[in-house]
């Protein structure tokens, strides 16, 4: 009897701990409900957020149905050398970034890696990128015109497809940490007659009440996207989260959003970057048309022939002509391992190889052309002619 009583705390403690774990999010969810708004009103609210000052943590999760690899050994720099593995990591792994924003001209994005970090810092017309693993810093001076541009220029031109999983880039902050504001812009453009729009106002993100803008394609099975949910902070209009769901998949295919946010102005010193001694500094001047496109990619982009776009709305297909991308990784001579990895990921189809993810299909033709679209592979194949 006495013995049983002494075991009581041992039984109660795990119950309490698990109870607390379950109860905590439930408590956090109890945010007050904002007044109802129409979709137009919510979009207008977003526009007011351009000059907001805030800092927060952004988390990106993807579940694209790609194979997952064990994470590289702790603290080692492995994984960075193989371009295909790097892309795979970008597509399948989760990422966390911190965002510091003070109005339209001062931003800093930090992609938090294990014992490493990649930074993009913009202060007026000066943009720095820094990678702690390679100790490489890039300095880009924006032309007067482009530096006066949109609220979040550090993200660069948005990819042509509705999500960010474009192969061919290396793991740069630009690509991974599309801030909610950027993705919101994409979503706004997508609100065409091809989409059903609905607004709800009962959810919360990062402890803040939000309007949820739900976009559902009308095209049905022609696209892989099931629907897109954009969460907009009810008080400030700042987009806090974007979730993309894929057809026939329960888990969110892709989501990027704030896990915490603080609307106080970040310290000014955060936007003043001096490259550390020992870092390799490269200086660029950004072309006016694409202000902050990743520097080493910029000359290539200029040389490329323009891609062909077929269709509009959700089932758009983009055809990149031969030579437009280094599809087999960013290095010109792919190593044996990375092409092997690429072979594992793709399946052979007549005339080339196909990569099918839950949100995006890619067709790599033997003649070098690449077709990309948020559509089934079959649609890409029929678009080849």
């Amino acid at each position, binding site marked *: 009897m006495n013995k049983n009583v*002494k075991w009581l705390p041992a039984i109660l403690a795990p119950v309490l701990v698990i109870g607390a774990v379950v109860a905590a999010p439930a408590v956090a969810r109890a945010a007050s409900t904002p007044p109802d708004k129409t979709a137009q009103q919510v979009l207008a609210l977003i526009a007011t957020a351009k000059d907001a000052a805030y800092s927060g943590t952004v988390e990106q999760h993807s579940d694209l149905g790609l194979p997952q690899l064990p994470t590289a050994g702790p603290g*080692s720099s492995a994984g960075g050398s193989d371009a295909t593995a790097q892309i795979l990591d970008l597509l399948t792994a989760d990422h966390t970034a911190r965002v510091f924003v003070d109005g339209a001209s001062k931003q800093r994005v930090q992609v938090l890696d294990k014992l490493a970090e990649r930074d993009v810092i913009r202060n007026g017309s000066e943009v720095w990128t820094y990678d702690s693993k390679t100790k490489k810093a890039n300095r880009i001076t924006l032309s007067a015109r482009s530096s006066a541009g949109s609220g979040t220029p550090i993200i660069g031109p948005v990819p042509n497809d509705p999500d960010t999983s474009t192969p061919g880039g290396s793991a740069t902050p630009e690509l991974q940490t599309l801030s909610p504001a950027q993705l919101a812009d994409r979503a706004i453009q997508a609100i065409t007659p091809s989409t059903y729009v609905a607004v709800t106002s009962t959810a919360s993100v990062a402890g803040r009440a939000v309007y949820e803008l739900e976009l559902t394609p009308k095209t049905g099975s022609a696209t892989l996207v099931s629907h897109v949910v954009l969460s907009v902070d009810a008080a400030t209009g700042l987009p806090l989260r974007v979730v993309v769901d894929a057809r026939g998949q329960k888990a969110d295919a892709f989501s990027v959003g704030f896990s*915490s946010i603080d609307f106080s102005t970040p310290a000014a010193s955060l936007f003043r970057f001096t490259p550390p001694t020992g870092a390799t500094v490269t200086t660029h001047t950004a072309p006016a048309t694409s202000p902050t496109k990743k520097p080493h990619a910029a000359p290539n982009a200029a040389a490329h022939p323009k891609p062909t776009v077929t269709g509009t709305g959700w089932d758009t297909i983009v055809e990149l002509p031969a030579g437009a991308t280094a599809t087999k990784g960013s290095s010109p001579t792919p190593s044996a391992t990375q092409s092997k990895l690429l072979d594992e990921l793709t399946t052979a189809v007549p005339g080339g190889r196909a990569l099918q993810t839950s949100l995006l299909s890619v067709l790599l033709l033997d003649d070098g052309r690449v077709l990309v679209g948020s559509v089934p592979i079959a649609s890409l194949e029929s678009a080849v002619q």
Partner: protein
Amino acid sequence: MSRAEPARAPGARPFALLGSELATLFRRRRTIAMLGALALVPILIAIAVRVTSAGSSGRGPAFLSDITQNGLFVGFTALTVSIPLFLPLTIGVVAGDTIAGEASLGTLRYLLVAPAGRLRLLGVKYLGAAVFAIAASAVIVVVGIGIGALLFPIGPVTLLSGDTIGAGDFALRALLMIGYVSMSLLGFAAIGTFISTLTTVPVGAMAATVVLAAASQIMDALPQLSAVHPWLFTHDWFAFGDLLRNPISWDSYAQNAVLQLGYIVVFGSLAIGRFTTTDVLS
């Protein structure tokens, strides 16, 4: 418990047992040897980098390439190297030995007859393991900084964010890092203490504890198990890097503190349940 306690003798110090435990632990040759082995990690790293002047290739453990430019990074490199194996190994030895070691010596029965009180003894034993965890991480960082300063140039420290900090800020962050790493090990030490109450064979308890640390790290590396990752006690072990960002990212500190507290509560109460009911027959 019907009878009133005898008035505590004047001059009786309730913390005497803790003092005695720490003195016993740190006077033990085994403990000193383990701390010495941990101190050897930064020393070997520093000498290896110095002799080969390698490390600029960007390969190897984090911060290795920073050492030639700033000796202060030796401590961080050594932490990175020690966290997966050496730290859990030594803390597993100490935590696994807590109760089982006394039981195998037979001194457990004399401590209990003294009477030490089972709860108090368990608490003191756990605190001893916790203090060892602090000492272990402090040895790595402090010896690392020392040997780095001896063999390499030192100067302002570059953070992961690319910003540079001065000596005072560096000292603060090094202290925070010792605090973070030792805190990360507290849940693990609680597990070890619990396992130690299950057996009178200390080597068995130590081995089981160390194996658990390895298993947890393996699970943490398998993406298929990502659902349980946030619950693994090793999950935030490497997040000490967040102290080298500008500004410091406290999220992982707080998250890890809650996680470790959860482990301490669960395994602490299991250990209490077990140790207060078991027969001491050794």
